[in-house]
């Protein structure tokens, strides 16, 4: 009896029709594609985008050039030099070279920073057109948004 059933199912192409029904249902379903670049999906709050330096409310840089990030980085992205100005309480960085091309976005620098100076940002558009665009000096480390894109691919023939 079961064999006759199996034969009939095979003869009437039941398995094929089931497959066709699945694709037809998907044909009419709502598509989850986000039309980039017209619409850009916001990354999650904890997203590990480009690491950026930050300033506090008064505009003073938070970085105290303790070089803990340099020590913890597994891929040698950092090259930091600090100096304590006369009469100042804290060290400040005078040189802060950071290489994007070496970063593995592991997050050790962010985790280890005692002042939360370096933090991940939601920047995920990280293409550059020149080597120099991937090297960030002290002032470049604060760039975000359009200014960051300008640094990364400034001078590019096709903007955006």
């Amino acid at each position, binding site marked *: 009896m079961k064999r006759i059933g199996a034969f009939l199912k095979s003869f009437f*192409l039941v398995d094929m029709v089931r*497959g066709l029904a699945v*694709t*037809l249902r*998907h*044909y009419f*379903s709502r*598509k989850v*594609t986000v*039309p980039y670049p017209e619409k850009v999906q916001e990354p999650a709050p904890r997203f590990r985008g480009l690491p950026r330096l930050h300033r506090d409310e008064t505009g003073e840089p938070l970085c105290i050039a303790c070089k803990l990030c340099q020590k913890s980085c597994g891929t040698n992205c950092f090259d930091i030099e600090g100096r304590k100005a006369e009469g100042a309480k804290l060290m400040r960085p005078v040189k802060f070279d950071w290489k994007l091309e070496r970063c593995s976005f592991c997050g050790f620098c962010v985790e280890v920073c005692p002042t939360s100076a370096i933090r991940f940002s939601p920047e995920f558009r990280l293409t550059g057109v020149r080597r120099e665009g991937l090297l960030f000096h002290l002032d470049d480390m604060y760039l975000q948004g359009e200014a960051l894109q300008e640094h990364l691919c400034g001078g590019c023939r096709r903007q955006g």
Partner: protein
Amino acid sequence: MTPFVADVLIPVGKIVAVILYPMVMVVVMIWLERRVVALMQGRLGPNRVGFQGVLQPVADAVKLFFKEDIIQRQADRLLFNISPLLVMASSLLAFCFVPLGEPIRIGTYTLTLWIAESPVGLLIVLGLSSISVFGVIFGGWASNSKYPLMGALRSVVQVLSYEIPTGLTVLTVAFLARSMDLVEIVRRQESSGVWYGFLMPVSFIVFWISAVAETNRAPFDLPEAESELVAGYHTEYSGMKFAYFYMAEYAHMVLVSSLVVILFFGGWLPPFPGVRALDFLDVVPGFVWYLVKIMFFLYLYVWMRATFPRYRFDSLIRLVWKWLIPLAFVNFLVVALVRYLR
């Protein structure tokens, strides 16, 4: 209607139409395939070039047009150049015999919607569409490379094997219609009131499966599948010649869909032609019904491609020789018996 118009302009116009019609359908198919497959897979497909991507085929054509035309040093030039033309020509020639509707009366002149009508039109169409086999073999051999040759041989074996159930099933239709003239077949379906696809569903299914296999489409597209080792007879072709093979495949699909519609689904007839109450449907010209039905089958082609895995070559051949041909034979005998008993 001067003799010049009737004897020269109108035939030339029909020839242009016969070349344009499959070409336009090919352009539509390129877009349809990419869009429909994409939507079935949960993505959007081409939607940048033109509204909803309708200019994508134009973009593809322009791109292929500008590609470099590469021919290997040892390739057989004549055969290499001829094979795309052969494959394309076989489909286009067959379209000469495919009717698109009942003759239209314009004043005193009857405009026939076909280039030629023959009492054995069915046979001629099938024969002409088989010429593509030559193009495939020439292309594979002339490429002077073992993978295209193997792909071409496989493709030829596949097409030739699947010709047999095709022939047997169209014979059943010819039996019922008592004629091999394509126009007669449609007229018989009108007078009998039921389309042959519903009278003989087995014939239709066997014909459809064989047709899909003959056009080298999924799930029978191993000879030209991208993810397999052997990349098919058109590997070594680039630029416009490749575009020709590509378009010829779609033109063949349109031809086969037209055949299916004419033989099994009443051609240009509206649904339920015998029922008087639905005569209001006659307002829509036959050509539109024809197009709607052809579009359904083209859509079915794409639907099948998006759904099914690929048959391996030996399973493919085993399928036709062990299952489809005996089934087609049995079906033929049953139809013959039923006709004899009537």
